[in-house]
């Protein structure tokens, strides 16, 4: 049975801007693709690049990283650090044979629900065009730091 490919995107949002933008999109009933699942961090600066690699290695087809606009980070300038990590990460992904287009950094203020919704839908379409990732999970995952122990326990 072949089903139409529905990409799964993990989105990292910061507590102060983009998570609130997502809230606002909801309150305003702005529609976007259901393929994204969000994780709330306090700040984009918390984003450890291995989170992104783990997401891709664990079945996500794309990852969206979001934060406050430059100059508007709640913790002054941690989003610049996120940006630096993002650019390094993109290069690393290319070297690993993963299309860098699967990972995207988006700035969204708490007022930009519509913008965030638009960016999500856009990324979903871009990743859909790239197709499923099917990363050789075993090899890569082994190279990454150990998974949380509790998750190793099957039913």
């Amino acid at each position, binding site marked *: 049975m072949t089903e139409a490919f529905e990409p799964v995107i993990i989105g990292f949002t910061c507590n102060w801007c983009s998570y609130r933008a997502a809230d606002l999109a909801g309150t305003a009933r702005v529609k976007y693709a*259901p393929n994204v699942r969000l*994780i709330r961090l306090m700040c984009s600066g918390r984003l450890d*690049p291995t989170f992104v690699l783990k997401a891709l290695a664990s079945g996500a087809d794309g990852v969206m990283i979001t934060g406050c606009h430059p100059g508007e980070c709640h913790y002054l*300038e941690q989003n610049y650090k996120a940006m630096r990590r993002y650019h390094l990460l993109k290069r690393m992904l290319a070297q690993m044979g993963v299309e860098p287009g699967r990972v995207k950094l988006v700035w969204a*203020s708490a*007022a930009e629900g519509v913008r965030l919704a638009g960016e999500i839908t856009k990324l979903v379409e871009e990743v859909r065009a790239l197709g499923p990732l099917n990363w050789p999970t075993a090899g890569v995952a082994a190279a990454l730091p150990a998974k949380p122990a509790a*998750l190793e326990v099957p039913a």
Partner: protein
Amino acid sequence: MTEKIGVYVCHCGTNIAGMVDVEGVAKWAAERLAHRGVVIARDYKFMCSSLGQELIEKDIQELGLTRVVVAACSPHLHEQTFRTACARAGLNPYLCELVSIREQVSWVHTDKAAATAKAKAVLSGGVERVTHHAPLEPLRVPIHPATLVVGGGIAGIQAALEIADSGTRVYLVEREPSIGGHMAQFDKTFPTLDCSACILTPKMVSVGNHPNITLMTYAEVTKVDGFVGNFEVTVTQKPRYVKVDLCTGCGVCEEKCPKKVVDDIFEVGLGKRKVIYRPFAQAVPKYPVLDRENCTYFIKGTCKACEKFCPTDAIDFEQKEEIITLKVGNIILATGFDLFNAHRIPQYGLGRLPNVFTSLEFERLCNAAGPTNGNVVMRDGTTVPKSVGIIHCVGSRDENYHAYCSSICCMQSLKFAHLVRERTGAEVYNFYIDMRAPGKGYEEFYHRLLEEGVHFVRGKVAEVSAFARLPGEEGHLIVQVEDTLIGKQRRIPLDMVVLSAGLEPRHDAKQVAKVFGISCSADGWYIEKHPKLDPVATMTEGIYIAGAVQGPKDIPASVAQGAAAAARVMGRIQQKEIALEPVRASIDETRCSGCRICNALCPFNAILYHADTAVSEVNPALCQGCGTCVAACPAGAISGTGFSDEQVLSQMEGLLLRNLQPVEV
């Protein structure tokens, strides 16, 4: 798996249940997440109701739940509600996780099956994450009882007085030489037409005399350190060149100063002031300031007339900028608005056609203490206009400038129409797009103006020009407008045109927001914590906003916000301490290699390095929990309470449904 997890899926009436199969989600969790520790999964109409909360409390007590996951609305709305419910039943509140299936699922998706599948994934993420939560205690920090109010317009004045009257110290910092803000420039205020100075001056005087208010004018806040309860604020006091402890405010210096310059600020270029001056007669404080740039002594080295005549030797040419540090617990920002610069719309002729005025210029013309003693005259200073046009919505409700409505301009234009009729008897034309008069007594005021014989033309003015084409146009300004009520283009010759320019954020609103660590909307207005339920708080604890800085508003609304912000601050002060989220980083010294990578990353300098033991340590009093150091530490030595690697990664595994065996959705 030792945890006993309770799962609660909310219908939120039909808000969630209309798009997500909530019963299905609960059933699914009970079956497919049982091996992850879920012992009970319920759905309920309104989880946040007292009955919904009791459901959780009962399960905690009867089933001995050790973790709770609620799938409902945004944590920014009800996280506290459910945490409190857990605490009531004896479960540590931080062992409860609220996942959003309303804002992030039912309200934003249109396909029921896809929305339900996503709700399951989101819930599963919450279940995995909460397993890694640890019981925490909130951080209690004391609240310093002093408050900083920035901006001495009517909003800031109101806030300062309310707090000072309650008995605690207020520092009011104002950039201009006097408090009063825009309201001090007006003659009358709509819709009651009471005299602006008559209602404002007593409040300004109270501020000046209040034993609990330290007024700092001609000063600006340049730095803010610390956090709610314990801010350390740096204020830069510009030199007045007047010793305020000696000055009696007699005004002799101002009288004797031989040099006059155009006053671009208070008189918006229409009037002049001396080089040593008070912006207006009722200024508070009463001390003048010396404008160094224009002072003959500072330019040429001679003059000092003010010094010679000052009876108390209060003039001090050696005065220097002063840096003052204040300790405060809370901050209210009330820095107001700027007027839209109507030069940006060249076809309206401001600056090119002398008899085109801005609204603020017109306010000064009307003001009895203004440059024309309250006579409404044309630019030559003597001719009384026989016909006046007032253009609404200049720069507002216009995609090219500001898409928003400035909310006060219709009423202010009606006020102008009344004042022109009253003072000159001239014919008045108001050009409006829609008449917006939603406040108390506003619609009535509009009807009064209709009866006063003002001509109302519904249409957006295309152009104001001086090119006469038709008989009767010679020597006049011609307003070209489509009158949409009769469906015709009209050319209306007038003597004078007033542009009711909109309100816009202060030119430096973004920089000021940065100093205080708050955010602006796309337009530049400061963002409130919640647009309906929390209009004066910001997302930064301890920082409040009031008045036009939050968005265009009239005086009554600015006063209400000033008082509201004051009430919030007073509540905080009364409580003496505040409980903060215990989201903090900490370093495991046995794993720290002493590389010091984290030290420079911390925006709050919370990480110190112990050279003797060669390890770094986080000072929890300074750490704000952004997590940047956690992400950066190459040794994995830093963990973030409430946002640990385990929590994030396990939530991710849950979201990707890696916890199900076997996977089929």
